[in-house]
C-alpha cells in the first residue's frame, strides 16, 4: 500500500499539470480578454469601462456586469475594415500553407530517403537558421529585397532586368518571408511521418504492378496525410495571426488581422475592439483545430 501512495500522488499531479497550466496561462488571461472585449473604450486608466473592483462590493460588480455589451462584436462583423482584415489573413495563411506544402513535401521526402547518417545532418540544416533571431532574419530579408539590395544587384549584374525591381513592400516579399520563416514547421512533421514509413509497403506496391509514381500516389501520399495535416495546421494557425512579417515586408494598403489588432491596441488605444478582434480570431482558429483533433482521434480509433 505504501508504494502505492508514493507513486500515485506525483502521477496524479503530473496528469493534472497540463490542465493547471492551461487554466493559469490560457483560460484566466482569456477571461480577462473576453471581459475587456465586452467593455466600452474610455479615456481612463485602464482605458475601458466598466471596471470590476471587488472592493466596491457585490452590487457594484452587478451593475458593472449589466454594462457589458456585444457592441464591439457588432462593429467588427459589420465594418468592412475588420471583415477584410480577417479575410485577408485567412487567404494569406491558406496560400502560404499551400506554398509551404509544395516546397516542404519534396524536401521532407528527400530527407526521409537519405541514408540514416545524412538524415540528422539534413535535420540540422533545417533547424540551424533558427538559432538566429527571427527579427534579424526578417531584417536580413529587407536588406536583400530593398531597392539596391542583394537580389536586385544580382539581377542587374546578370542583366536579367534593366532597372531595379520593386520587391520590398509587396505581397511577394511577404509570402517569401512567411514561407522562409515557417518552412521548418512544415518540414519536420512531414519528415516525421515519411521517415517512419515502412519501405516494404513501397516494395509491395511495385511488386503488385505499380510504377514508382503510382506507388507514391497510392501508398506514400495517403499514408503521409497525418503529417500533411499536422504541418498545415502548425503553419496555418500562426500565419493567420502573423503580425511582424506582413508589417515589415508587405505594403500598407491592406492589413492582416494581426496588424489591425496592433493598430487598435497601440495606435487607437481601443482595448475593447482589439480584444474582441482577438476573441473572434480565436474562434476562427478553433474550427481547424477541432477538425484536426477529430482526424487524429479517428486515426487513433482505427489503430
Amino acid at each position: 500500500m505504501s508504494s502505492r501512495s508514493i507513486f500515485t500522488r506525483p502521477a496524479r499531479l503530473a496528469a493534472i499539470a497540463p490542465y493547471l497550466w492551461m487554466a493559469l496561462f490560457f483560460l484566466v488571461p482569456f477571461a480577462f480578454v473576453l471581459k475587456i472585449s465586452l467593455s466600452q473604450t474610455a479615456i481612463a486608466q485602464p482605458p475601458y469601462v466598466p471596471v470590476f473592483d471587488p472592493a466596491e462590493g457585490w452590487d457594484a460588480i452587478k451593475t458593472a456586469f449589466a454594462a457589458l455589451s456585444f457592441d464591439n462584436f457588432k462593429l467588427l462583423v459589420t465594418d468592412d475594415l475588420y471583415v477584410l482584415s480577417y479575410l485577408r489573413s485567412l487567404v494569406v495563411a491558406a496560400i502560404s500553407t499551400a506554398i509551404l506544402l509544395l516546397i516542404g513535401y519534396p524536401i521532407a521526402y528527400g530527407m526521409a530517403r537519405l541514408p540514416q547518417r545524412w538524415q540528422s545532418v539534413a535535420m540540422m540544416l533545417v533547424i540551424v537558421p533558427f538559432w538566429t533571431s527571427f527579427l534579424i532574419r526578417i531584417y536580413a530579408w529587407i536588406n536583400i529585397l530593398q531597392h539596391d539590395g542583394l537580389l536586385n544587384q544580382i539581377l542587374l549584374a546578370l542583366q536579367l532586368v534593366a532597372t531595379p525591381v520593386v520587391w520590398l513592400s509587396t505581397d511577394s516579399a511577404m509570402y517569401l518571408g512567411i514561407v522562409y520563416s515557417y518552412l521548418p514547421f512544415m518540414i519536420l512533421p512531414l519528415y516525421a511521418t515519411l521517415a517512419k514509413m515502412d519501405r516494404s509497403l513501397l516494395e509491395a506496391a511495385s511488386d503488385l504492378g505499380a510504377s514508382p509514381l503510382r506507388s507514391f500516389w497510392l501508398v506514400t501520399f495517403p499514408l503521409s496525410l497525418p503529417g500533411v495535416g499536422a504541418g498545415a495546421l502548425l503553419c496555418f494557425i500562426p500565419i493567420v495571426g502573423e503580425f511582424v512579417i506582413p508589417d515589415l515586408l508587405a505594403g500598407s494598403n491592406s492589413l492582416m488581422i494581426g496588424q489591425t489588432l496592433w493598430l487598435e491596441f497601440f495606435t487607437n488605444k481601443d482595448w475593447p475592439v482589439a480584444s474582441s478582434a482577438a476573441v473572434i480570431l480565436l474562434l476562427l482558429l478553433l474550427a481547424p483545430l477541432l477538425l484536426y483533433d477529430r482526424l487524429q482521434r479517428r486515426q487513433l480509433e482505427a489503430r
Partner: protein
Amino acid sequence: MMGQAGITTEDVAKSASGADSPNGEPQAAADVPLLRIEAVVKKFGGFRAVDGLSLDVRAGEFFALLGPSGCGKTTLLRMLAGFETPDEGRILLDGKDIARVAPHERPINMMFQNYALFPHLGVRDNIAFGLKRAAMPGAEIEARVAELIALVKLEGLEKRKPDQLSGGQRQRVALARSLARRPRVLLLDEPLAALDKKLRESTQLELMELQRRLGLTFIIVTHDQEEAMTMAGRIGVMDSGRLEQVAAPRELYEAPRSRWVAEFVGDINLFEGQLERREGGHLTMAPRLTIATREAGILQVAEPRQPITKENLCVAIRPEKVKLSRRGPAASDNTNALNRLEGVVTDVSYLGGVTAYKVKLDGGAVLRSSMANTARLDLDAYGVNQRVVAWFSPEDCVVLEQ
C-alpha cells in the same frame, strides 16, 4: 482445409499455369525450366551476399530455400522479385532474362515476411491493388477478389483495415493479395514466421494444398528446416551465398553431401577419423570401409556411391539410428550391429514421442541417441549413470570427406 472453397479455383489454376496469364507469357517448353538462375552474384560493398549461385526451378514446384540468417537466401529472393539487381549472372524466366526488369513489370509476386499490407486500405482493396494496376475491368476485379476472399476464408472481413485483423487473418490477406495477379512464380519470404506454432502447422498444410490445387510455382524462404521439409518438394540449403545442396527432403536428411549440411539439417553425431581399409564388394558382402576414429574407435561403414578421394573422413550417424541396450544387441541384430560402443548415460530428456539420451563413450566422445517411446510403460528406460552399449549398422552411417 481450403479445399472446400473450390468454386472457381479451377480458373485460378488454369490461368496460373500459363494460358491466359495477365502478362501473356507463352507456356514454357517441357525441357526449359520455368526459372533458371545462372551464376548470380550480388555484392553489398565487399560482402558477397549471393556468390555465383545457379539453380533451376521447374513449373509447379514447391521449392524451399533453407539456410541460417545471413546466408543470402532473402537476397536471392529479392533478386527474383526485382528489388535487388544481380551484379553478375542471369535470371531466366521462360528463357528470357529478367534480371534487370523492374519489379512492377515482372509476372512474379511476393508475399512479404511482415506481410506489408497497406494500412490505409481495407482487406478488399489490399487484394484488389494488383488487379487495378493490371487495368482489369471493374466487374472482373470484383469477381476475382470475391473468389480470393473465399479461397483464404476471409468472408465478412472485406472492409476491415489490416490493424483490425489477427495475425493469422493478416497472413491470409497477404497470401490472397500475392495470388491475385496469378503470378508465374510466387515468392514467400518466411511466410509463417509470425504465426504461433499450432497455426503455423495448419497453415503449412493449407499452403501445400493451395499450391498443389492451383498448380502454381512456389519458392519459399525459411530458416525453419521442419517447415521446409514439410512443405517443399525440393530444398536448396544455402550457406554464405552458395547452395550447399539441392535435394528432396529425405535425401537431404539421409544423404547430406557435406559436413555443413549434415550438421545444419537435423541432429547428428560426427566422428572424425582416417580410412583404414576397404573390403568386400563381392557377391556375399557389400563394399565396406573401416575407419579409425579419434573418439569412437574403429567404425564400419557402407561405402558411399561417390568414391572417396581423401584420407581424412568424418562418420556421421543420426541419433535415431543409434540404439542402446544394457548388454549389447540381441543375437538377431548381430549382423547389423557391427559398430558397438560402450559408455555411460549422462543425460536423459523425455520429449514425449521420443527420449533423447546422451552417452559418454569410453573413447571420450558424447554420442546422442534418440529412441521412440513406443510403449506407454517403459520398464526398460535407461537412467543417468547406466552403463550401456550403443550400436548402429554400417548402412546407417554416412561418410563425409573433411
